[in-house]
């Protein structure tokens, strides 16, 4: 279980990295934390001819809060960094909420948040957090900069809007509304495993009335996925167990998750409904919901 040979590049600047990607295209892979790429290479399921290690590029490892409260996360920010960041806890709390679910400490200290997003595993937490919070994803290539909306980013199983010559350099999360609440819940076979199903929820609530809702599921389709009908059922409704049950019923009816050796499709569909109620209850717990 050892990686096949490759040409190793460790550019010092982003431009150099982008030039390498422009030159080698599909035969190159970007290496940041490596927590998804290296095992694939060790299993020889991935055999890039060129590995572009961006780990030494300065300026990609910061979490910055903008003037209006938006939070920008760079390509080399590790999961653990966001778990312990007070800026993230204050301005992008859904990321902080997701972090304890992400793998284990020793993975979080190397794995990058943007790497997880760019990898696009449908059972991982961060793609769902992206769908729920709708940040802007900034991709750079030697031919320029592209801003990609969250809704346009995930294309299919391990397939995203990123081109082979692009690096996802920053993700800019919009300011967290004072009325916003959120939760991330999931069920995995074992602690730290990829989820059987999970959900990231973000609501804005005025009094006890839901004014907006984003429900993003992971482990429930070939990508992380939102369920707009359930969200619409929430908007305008009051925070209550009945409201959540109604949303859950829509979720279970509309999702058609794939079966695998760990859980059946019926189980996942049922679980998505259960997690809808539990996630919404957790998100609104401090609002005094009776859910």
């Amino acid at each position, binding site marked *: 279980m050892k990686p096949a040979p490759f040409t190793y590049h*460790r550019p010092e600047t982003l431009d150099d990295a982008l030039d390498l990607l422009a030159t080698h295209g599909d035969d190159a892979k970007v290496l940041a934390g490596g927590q998804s790429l*290296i095992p694939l290479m060790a299993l020889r399921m991935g055999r890039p001819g060129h590995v572009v290690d961006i780990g030494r590029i300065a300026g990609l490892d910061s979490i910055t809060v903008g003037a209006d409260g938006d939070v920008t996360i760079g390509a080399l920010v590790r999961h653990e960094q966001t778990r312990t960041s007070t800026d993230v806890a204050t301005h992008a709390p859904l990321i902080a909420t997701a972090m304890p679910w992400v793998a284990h*400490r020793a993975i979080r*200290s190397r794995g990058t948040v943007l790497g997880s997003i760019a990898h696009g595993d449908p059972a991982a937490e961060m793609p769902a957090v992206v769908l729920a919070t709708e940040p802007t994803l900034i991709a750079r290539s030697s031919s320029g900069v592209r801003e990609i909306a969250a809704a346009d980013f995930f294309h299919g199983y391990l397939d995203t809007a990123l081109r082979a010559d692009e690096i996802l350099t920053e993700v800019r999360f919009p300011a967290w509304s004072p009325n916003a609440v959120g939760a991330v819940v999931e069920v995995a076979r074992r602690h730290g495993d990829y989820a059987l199903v999970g959900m990231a929820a973000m609501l804005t609530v005025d009094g006890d009335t839901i004014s907006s809702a984003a429900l993003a599921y992971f482990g429930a389709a070939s990508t992380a996925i939102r369920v707009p009908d359930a969200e619409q059922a929430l908007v305008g409704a009051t925070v209550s167990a009945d409201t959540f049950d109604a949303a859950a019923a829509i979720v279970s009816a509309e999702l058609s998750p794939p079966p695998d050796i760990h859980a059946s499709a019926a189980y996942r569909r049922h679980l998505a409904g259960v997690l809808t109620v539990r996630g919404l209850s957790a998100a609104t717990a401090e609002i005094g919901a009776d859910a």
Partner: protein
Amino acid sequence: MTADRLAAEESAGGSIVDVALTVNGRSAPVRVEARRTLSDVLREDVGLTGTHLGCEHGVCGACTVLIDGQPARSCLLLAAQVDGAEITTIEGLAEPDGTLHPIQQAMMQAHGFQCAFCAPGFLMSAVALLADNPQPTRSEIREELAGNLCRCTGYQSIVDGVEIAVRRMNGDSSGGSS
């Protein structure tokens, strides 16, 4: 490393890189294939075989080491990625005079392990945990150690060992009873 291996590696088609590691406080420069994982470099090129390989795909945690103080799976890193880093392995836990680290003493007291193949990873994870959180609860210990698999013990004795280490490191030199 034999000359035959080096010659073959040079014709294998991948990059050869110079990596300057500092392992347990000692400089350990190596010249290796870029594809070599940190775990293999530690074990075969630096000669520190205390770090073990249980799965080589990042699940079992036996290969956990500290990189600049942070726990990491050495099987999920190329050595080239950590060029210049300070690495701590199980061999570096004891004091230079041989005095064992409190976690090592505590695990002895708790009879924490059986075959102990997994022990290097658990010890490094426990050291990282106690650095992050010097007074973890029993359930926090379980949660943090969930990244390391043990097949022998059912974990209870390992959790006991960490609790003893917590008490020792917080001034109770007896560690209390296990």
